């Protein structure tokens, strides 16, 4: 049941709003933006810049490069918006575009190599039941959330990037696999291990 609900879940948007009115508003906004309407593009920018910047900031290591990537996403938007077909909610599509931009930036930094390289270390193999699985509990105070964020930010690329794409951009494993040019199973393994690493680095969490 829960799995199904998760599957159907749309990104929760702080800025965009998913109300009926807002959605209609958004549709016309996108329509205008397609016609190179500067004001519409400006409005889209105003609504989603924070969300896009957030993603870039998580994905990239410096504020400057995150700002660069954010600028690029919105600069390219006037052209790329033509390829938006409405099959998925716009904010999610935008975050996918932004994710791609960040992956490109990471790739450039690594001189064209893939951001995450599959290594044959058995990561993709489903592991047996670990003796003491102890997922992060419902730590929910503001300070603790900040701590979780900081720890995620310090994870290596191969853990941080899929984790952020999954739980911030809310992309499916398939979408992440496609963006990172990896096997779906490997993405699953990376996310799994990323969480384990996170648990290891957050040892004194409250349960």
């Amino acid at each position, binding site marked *: 049941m829960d799995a199904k609900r998760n599957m159907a879940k749309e990104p929760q948007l702080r800025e965009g709003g998913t109300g009926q009115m807002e959605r209609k508003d958004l549709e016309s906004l996108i329509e205008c933006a397609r016609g190179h309407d500067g004001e519409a593009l400006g409005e889209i920018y105003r609504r989603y810049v924070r969300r896009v910047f957030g993603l870039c900031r*998580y994905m990239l290591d410096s504020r400057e490069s995150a700002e660069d990537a954010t600028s690029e996403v919105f600069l390219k938007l006037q052209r790329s918006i033509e390829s938006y077909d409405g099959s998925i909610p716009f904010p999610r599509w935008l975050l996918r575009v932004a994710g791609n931009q960040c992956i490109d930036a990471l790739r*450039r930094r690594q001189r064209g190599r893939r951001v995450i390289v599959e290594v044959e270390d058995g990561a993709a193999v*489903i592991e047996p039941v670990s003796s003491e699985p102890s997922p992060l509990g419902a730590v929910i105070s503001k300070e603790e959330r900040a701590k979780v964020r900081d720890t995620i930010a310090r994870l290596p690329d191969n853990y941080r990037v899929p984790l952020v794409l999954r739980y911030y951009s809310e992309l499916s494993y398939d979408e992440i696999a496609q963006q990172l040019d990896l096997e779906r199973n490997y993405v699953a393994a990376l996310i799994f291990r990323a969480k384990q690493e996170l648990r290891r680095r957050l040892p004194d969490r409250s349960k």
Partner: protein
Amino acid sequence: MECYSEQTCALAVDGELAADEVQRLRDHLTTCQRCRALVDALRAENRVLSESLNELPDEAASPAGFTAQRWSWGWSDLAILVVVLVLGSIISGWFNELDIPAALDWFNPFSVSGRTNLIFHFFDYFAHGGTAMLGDYAAVVGWICLLLLLGGSALVLGRRGRPHYPGMRLLIVLLALSLPSFALERRHGEFVTVAANETVDDTLVATANMVRVDGVVNGDLLTFGRTVEVRGTVRGDLISFAQRTEVSGTVEGHIYTVSHTLDLEGQLGHSIYGVVQSLHIDDRGRVGDGIVVAVGDASLEGEVKRGVDIVTSGSADVSGSIGRDLTMVGRSLTLTNTARVGGNLSARVRQLKEVHIADGATIGGKRDIQVRVRESSFTRPRFYFHQAVWLAGAILVGWLGMLLFPGFFRATTQLVGSGWLSLGLGVGVLAGVPVAIVVIAITLVGFPLSLMLLALYLAAIYLAKIWVSAFLGRILLKPSGATKGDWLLGLLVGLLILTIVGFIPYLGGLVRLGVVCLGLGAFAGQLYRASRPVITA
């Protein structure tokens, strides 16, 4: 029933498990306390992750703050600026104290006669009415420009203050180039004259069928015309693009010319530099410095105070006096009885019998007459050195282009791939732009624009091979990513191939022409694309 692994549970919680698997897990959960606890815990963990990530860090608090901070000046920027200013002051002070030999003064960017600060001269020239009037000021302007250049580079390298919108960068370049649009005296018409009793205090730009100066021009004279005659005085330089340039009066500066014929019957303060079909220095003509020209035929009857360097496709006849060395490369050389060469005479001719030196001719220094044998350039090491320098220069230009206009360079490279379209467009641009330049130059306001267009045209012709090479390299290498490094590597490979192909007789020339057309076409196409509306948010 056996319990599920943590990873399977995690997949289920992420909604990534196949439907039948989910059903089986769900059945299992109804009976297994342990797995239910695990799934609940994993779900809670996902919630923690989502909530933590979605509660954006403070630095992304507001979009307004984000854009405002982009342009704020941090302490590090200030520090960079201070360092650049201090370094600049030290360097310029050091330069001033240096006793630079006159021969090397062209290298000194702070010197008025420096040739490395040609760009500064150019700006100063247009902004302040000519170097002849405010020459000293060029040093100051040069100093400021150099500091700005250094500071700008430091900021770019520091990745701060970099304009993020390509349009903005283009605007800055255009603003810098639009300086020429003021402080010039321009005249235009069928017949432009400066009357005998008239004095032009500014630099005069004259475009006309016939330009005649009987009076005085206190600045430089810059002319486009069929016939240019200076009977009066030009205190600055004479720069002429004309069918016939004739100086019977006085030019106190230099003459820079591209003309069919150049006749000097009057006085020239400094040197002649030019490409001329027929050069004639009358016996009344005096050249204060030297002559450096590429000519069809040259006839020197007057007096040249310093050296003469001539590359000629025809003959050079000397019957006047040359203060220092005479160096010529060409078909034939004749020195009459009245000829006098103060220094050495060196000539490179095809056949020895083409050199006629009359017995009465005086030559102060050594005679060095050599028959030029056309040997294959491939046997000379210098040839390879030149090619290497040329290649390094092209790579450097490509790198700079990628640094400053990465999007534009990439896109243009891409556009080369449109083949026939680019080629066709390129042929049109190659042939059409010179016509447009001339047409624009003739109109009154269009003159600075035509100069800019000319500069852009020449630059694009040079850059054409860079884009085509980069494209060629990319096709051959098929790099995994599209990084700057890949682009540059592709450029190197492409340049090497094109250079080698370019040496094949006949075919090479054709290929070179094709490359220029392709690159020009891609450039024009990309310019058109880039000129479409950009985001204003």
